[in-house]
């Protein structure tokens, strides 16, 4: 990119006009980023001098529109019925949000505060819910002390041969004196 390094000090030599330092610095950046431009900028600019002067001589800077009075009247009639600028209304600027900037704080203050409040509420609600959930979960996961209540079981064991040889005595024998019935 030989031309980049040798940009003339006097920019009018190259562009036919004086460029301020900021514009010249920007041009250097653009040329550094685009090799095709860097290689051909000088030549294209110099070769354009003829075209530039021809454009200037053939394309007029001002052309009066046909029927200029009607042109203007039509605009005036349209603007008188279509729209009244906000500033024309007799409002105190302090009472009404500024319309000079889309990003005006006054214009966005209330919606942003409401949105912020809602978001905060949502976050706190979620946290509270999560806290409770974890509390319940903790309670559910607590070790349960199992108490097993076993019903008393009675087993009567009989032997097959005993069944056959059961003899129902007419009178129950009197137990021996040392015999004690088992406690129930």
């Amino acid at each position, binding site marked *: 990119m030989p031309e980049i390094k040798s940009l003339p000090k006097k920019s009018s030599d190259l562009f036919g*006009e004086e*460029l301020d330092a*900021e*514009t010249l610095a*920007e*041009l250097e*950046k*653009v040329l550094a*980023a*685009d090799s095709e*431009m860097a290689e*051909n*900028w000088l*030549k*294209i*600019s110099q*070769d*354009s*001098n*003829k*075209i*530039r002067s*021809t*454009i*200037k*001589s*053939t*394309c*007029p*800077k*001002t*052309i*009066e*529109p*046909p029927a*200029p009075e009607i*042109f*203007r009247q*039509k*605009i*005036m009639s*349209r*603007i*008188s019925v*279509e*729209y*009244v*600028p*906000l*500033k*024309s*209304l007799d409002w105190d600027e302090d009472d009404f949000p500024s*319309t*000079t*900037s889309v990003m005006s704080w006054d214009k966005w203050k209330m919606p942003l505060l409401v949105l912020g409040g809602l978001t905060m509420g949502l976050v706190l609600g979620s946290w509270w819910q999560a806290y409770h959930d974890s509390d319940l979960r903790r309670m559910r996961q607590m070790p349960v002390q199992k108490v097993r209540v076993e019903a008393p079981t009675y087993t009567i064991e009989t032997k097959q041969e005993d069944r056959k040889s059961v003899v129902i005595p007419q009178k129950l024998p009197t137990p021996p004196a040392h015999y004690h019935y088992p406690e129930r």
Partner: protein
Amino acid sequence: MTEPQSPEVQSWIERSQRGDSQAFGQLVELYQSRIYAMILQMVRNEADAWDLSQEVFVRAWKSISRFEGRSSFLTWLFRISHNMVCDFVRSPKNSPRMMWEDYMEHEVAPEATISSQPSLPDEALQNSELGREIAQAIRLLSPEHQAVILLKEVQDLSYKEIAEATGTSLGTVMSRLFYARKQLQSYLSHARN
């Protein structure tokens, strides 16, 4: 560079912002010929240029309360015009334009560039012929390239003003200007050969 805004123009702007349509009428009268010229040179049709120029001023009136004076009023009007013309040209209602790339595919082969022309005996005749060729070549450029060429070479806006008028960066303006000039030279070189 556009002429500095006179105090009178400044007062018209401020009065317009307060809803004074008569003051806005003064602004229309002052700038209508420049806006109309710019639009006509892009759309190449008087009726369309007439309608579009009207629309530019109506839109300017509607949003004049948002004009903050960071650029000149004329640059601001050029910006509205640029947006409107680009939308208009790209609208499917309008007949498809032959773009530069299409032209290059079908008509032009070499990528030669035009150099300084040899002097001819009748320079006026040569200029008028060249003027017609240049008008044709400009028509083949994309709306964005047309805009930078016309704003720079015809309306004499600075790079910064063109950047404001087209809503692009300074670097983009330089790049568009370079490629637009290159295309013009390429077309003219082909036309002459």
